[in-house]
């Protein structure tokens, strides 16, 4: 185990998440991509804490931040989908983009 291995894992998770966020049409699936990206961020932050600056708690704070962002992102996402669906019966990004026309 080394810092590089952990960061490579983080990069892999981030890229897979990015792929999902870019390709998926459904808003809920898109959010799953975002969650995966944030999972990568968590691994990266924890690895940097462990291998570079274990004496300071800043890396841990970053993990807390990422976990909170995940929760907030999911909740807001679902609220927006619910609101969109309620008013327009829209649940896909492409359909939401058409709304502005």
């Amino acid at each position, binding site marked *: 185990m080394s810092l590089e291995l952990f960061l490579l894992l983080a990069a892999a998770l981030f890229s*897979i998440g990015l792929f999902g966020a870019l390709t998926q049409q*459904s808003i809920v*699936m898109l959010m799953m991509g975002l969650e995966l990206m944030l999972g990568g961020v968590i691994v990266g932050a924890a690895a940097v804490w462990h291998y570079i600056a274990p004496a300071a*708690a800043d890396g841990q704070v970053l993990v807390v931040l990422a976990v909170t962002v995940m929760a907030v992102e999911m*909740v807001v996402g679902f609220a927006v989908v619910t609101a969109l669906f309620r008013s327009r019966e829209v649940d896909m990004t492409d359909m939401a983009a058409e709304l502005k026309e």
Partner: protein
Amino acid sequence: MPDEVIFWVLALVAVAAGVMVFRFDSMARATYALLTSLLCVGGEVLLLGLDYLGVVIVLMMTIEMAIMAVFMVMYMMNPAGLMPMTMVHNKKGAAAICAAVFAVLAAGVLLAPWPSRRGRPSADPTMDLGLSLMGPQMLTMMALGLALFATIVATVVLATRRGRYDRFGDDLKARTPDDAVRGGTGR
């Protein structure tokens, strides 16, 4: 040595489950594949010596994905994957972008001159985190708390169909709200 094995197993499962999230037809399976991936992330964090954060990730992600599954089933046309269909756009472009992003990140990871380890983790990293959040990082903590509170209010406002005028009448004078489902406190 056992740590090495645990790391590789968790890492491979995390990546494989992450890929499967976007390959499963069934939304329930996709959600629980994501949960598997994130539980492995929690395991890696535990492996790095952050006991508290690792367990909290396991706790939060389990609850989050259990709730997420409800919305997945609610908003997808094909929740159980009984009629396979793809709902993706621009797959090739996205794949190219993601491969490029991974290549750049990996090059950065491998080429960057990482500083050597400074200091040692204290005996109780959880205590460190608590002291930090309640001391020098107080502002972060306050901002997080405020953001979470704002999120709760905003999401309820966004998601609810019935406002207070629906519940308490036009002049808001009704003593008991007119709800479709009565709660348990007898109001």
